């Protein structure tokens, strides 16, 4: 079985003004992915503002408020392709106030480029973003030491920052980091090597992005199929058709395989794997398909099909790491709903174990949860959920918390 895809999703992260948006602009510019009308529009704007050169950060900072303030507020998605790969880039904001938008982008990324300003070194926000990237399980990390032009392209400065960063990352259990010195402004080490960093022997960023082996995060062993939708055509020829539509989140399934329906625990066999393009004998993650079963059993949205050989935990109580994203702090008198795969349930916070200090990674006692806090909690839910540890399965190990009164998404959770 080979599973090749050309799509790499990556994001930029790091502290305010470290050059994330400029880097993306530079990457698009030097890989000839900027269109003439886009370039002429940002040139005009740069000129109007009396800038000497084109401000490439304007390519992603698309909102009026962002342009006014020269900062990024929310993620911008950009698309480009080289002959080797297709890329979806998320440019995230460095401001602490907008951390939730960084988490939004990180949750679907295969790779994160953490930028550091060579003059400033590793900052709190650098650590926070690194911690968040590791928490949401972004598989690959690149450290880009940017603005090397402002420190005379000094190798010593680069080495010192790399050493400090590696020491921090090691505490998180991250050891594989690719570190690249660069100047997003001038283009050194973005697409081309440039002349100023001849002491650096590694490849430029784009080269790395094109060639990094993306282990697909897709868990290929444990079959997980959350039912999204029950397909009942009730039309001519399909009176008895009852299909269960959803996406295979991990593993694979074949006609004739025995499945267990959770949480009920009933079993049946797969009769057909139906798609618009014809029935299949076998299907794999992340395909969207419709399954029919040999037996008539009661199944609805929110149920999950699994195989007996690799069962998730079915439970009403669990522990999780939580990123609190909302401006209003956790209020234990309020009602919160959890959405896990395709199931929504009422929930209770039964315990707050500790809060993590993003600078030192030390655990602190937690009596409250405020915006941007990262904490370990214990939760109870009204109906049982089919859960996997987040490190084993990004799809069945994740959930969001919704405030029932405001309908806002207030937290991101990972089963621990």
């Amino acid at each position: 079985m080979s599973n090749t895809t050309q799509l790499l999703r990556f994001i930029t992260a790091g502290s305010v003004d470290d050059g994330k948006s400029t880097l993306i602009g530079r990457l698009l510019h030097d890989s000839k992915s900027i269109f003439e009308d886009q370039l002429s529009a940002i040139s005009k704007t740069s000129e109007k503002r009396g800038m000497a050169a084109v401000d490439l950060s304007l390519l992603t900072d698309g909102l009026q408020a962002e342009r006014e303030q020269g900062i990024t507020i929310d993620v911008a998605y950009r698309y480009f392709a080289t002959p080797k790969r297709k890329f979806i880039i998320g440019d995230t904001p460095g401001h602490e106030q907008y951390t939730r938008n960084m988490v939004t982008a990180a949750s679907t990324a295969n790779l994160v480029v953490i930028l550091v300003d060579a003059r400033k070194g590793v900052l709190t926000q650098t650590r926070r973003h690194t911690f968040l990237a590791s928490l949401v399980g972004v598989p690959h990390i690149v450290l880009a030491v940017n603005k090397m032009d402002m420190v005379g392209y000094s190798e010593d400065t680069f080495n010192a920052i790399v050493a400090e960063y590696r020491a921090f990352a090691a505490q998180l259990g991250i050891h594989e980091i690719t570190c690249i010195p660069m100047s997003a402004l001038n283009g050194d080490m973005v697409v081309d090597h440039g002349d100023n960093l001849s002491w650096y022997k590694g490849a430029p960023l784009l080269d790395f992005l094109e060639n990094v082996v993306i282990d697909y995060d897709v868990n290929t062993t444990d079959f997980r199929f959350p039912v999204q939708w029950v397909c009942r055509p009730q039309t001519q020829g399909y009176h008895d058709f009852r299909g269960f539509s959803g996406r295979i989140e991990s593993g694979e399934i074949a006609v004739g395989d025995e499945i267990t329906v959770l949480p009920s625990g009933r079993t049946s066999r797969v009769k057909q794997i139906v798609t618009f393009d014809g029935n299949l004998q076998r299907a794999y993650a992340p395909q969207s398909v419709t399954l029919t079963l040999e037996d008539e059993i009661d199944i609805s949205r929110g149920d999950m099909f699994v195989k007996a050989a690799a069962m998730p935990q079915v439970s009403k109580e669990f522990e999780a790491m939580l990123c609190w994203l909302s401006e209003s702090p956790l209020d234990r008198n309020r009602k919160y709903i959890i959405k896990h795969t395709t199931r929504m349930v009422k929930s209770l916070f039964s315990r707050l174990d500790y809060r993590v200090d993003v600078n030192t990674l030390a655990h602190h006692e937690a009596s409250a949860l405020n915006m941007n806090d990262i904490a370990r909690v214990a939760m109870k839910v009204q109906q049982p959920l089919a859960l996997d540890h987040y490190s084993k399965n990004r799809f069945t190990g994740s959930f969001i918390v919704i405030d029932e009164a405001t309908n806002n998404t207030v937290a991101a959770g990972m089963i621990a």
Partner: protein
Amino acid sequence: MKLVENNNMSSHIFTHLDALESESIHIMREVAAECKNPALLFSGGKDSIVMLRIAEKAFRPAKFPFPLVHIDTEHNFPEVIACRDKLAADLGERLIVRSLEGSIKRGSIVIKDPDKPRNPYQSVTLLETIAEFGFDACMGGARRDEEKARAKERIFSFRDEFGQWDPKNQRPELWDIYNTRVHAGENIRVFPISNWTEMDIWEYIAREKLYIPKIYYAHEREVIRRGNAVIPVSHLVQPKPGEKVEVLSVRFRTVGDMTCTAPVESTARNAQEIIEETSTTRITERGATRMDDQTSEASMELRKKEGYF
């Protein structure tokens, strides 16, 4: 998805188009399952035709669990309207059409010059239609690669009771666990093909052999040049004194309001040839074709704040 069978071992190749398609199917099913009264905005343009195919893949052999809705500016190309009606009929799905004319009669839209572009007014009729049917979710075919404000929008984009988008305060959107909850009167706009590019759309049209309005392919057309733009001559756009009518081989990259949608010069007569042209073009889809988006740097953001798709 191609299946390669060899000696009982089956290997499968999951291309980037398969990945995008599966993501879009997943999004549509979430909408159908969680929203009480959703609709699919369908204009007869290429992006919404791709959405129809995604809907077929998500829901067949059953009917779509939502109607198709078109907000008609009455400035549309006749070929596009014909295609819209044909596709809806072929699929046997319900099509609801509401036109700006209705809003003009009610007085909710006051138009100074009936021949000027009407895109800005579409939001009014859209919001009226949402209220008329009580839709709590509208799926649209906007893509993030089209425009810089769109590049910022969530896949599930929350709108308040005035249909407004608040770009500085969007809901976090984690993994692909979508929060579809709204209060009565509020709604969400959902963009199932957010992550598709113009190139992906053409590759998909070629792969799926989708039927699209023929004005997307190169054809001879009478045009006039105004500034940098090439404008199609129609009953709405007639040459002014001194303007010369030329016949050029052109195709449309987008098909919007006839008075402000410019074609590009092209000889590409099928999807494959368009893919080749698209891979060498140096101008964005909207930059080449939408005169209304160029009026101000933030025109799309402003329109979205007012309730536009």
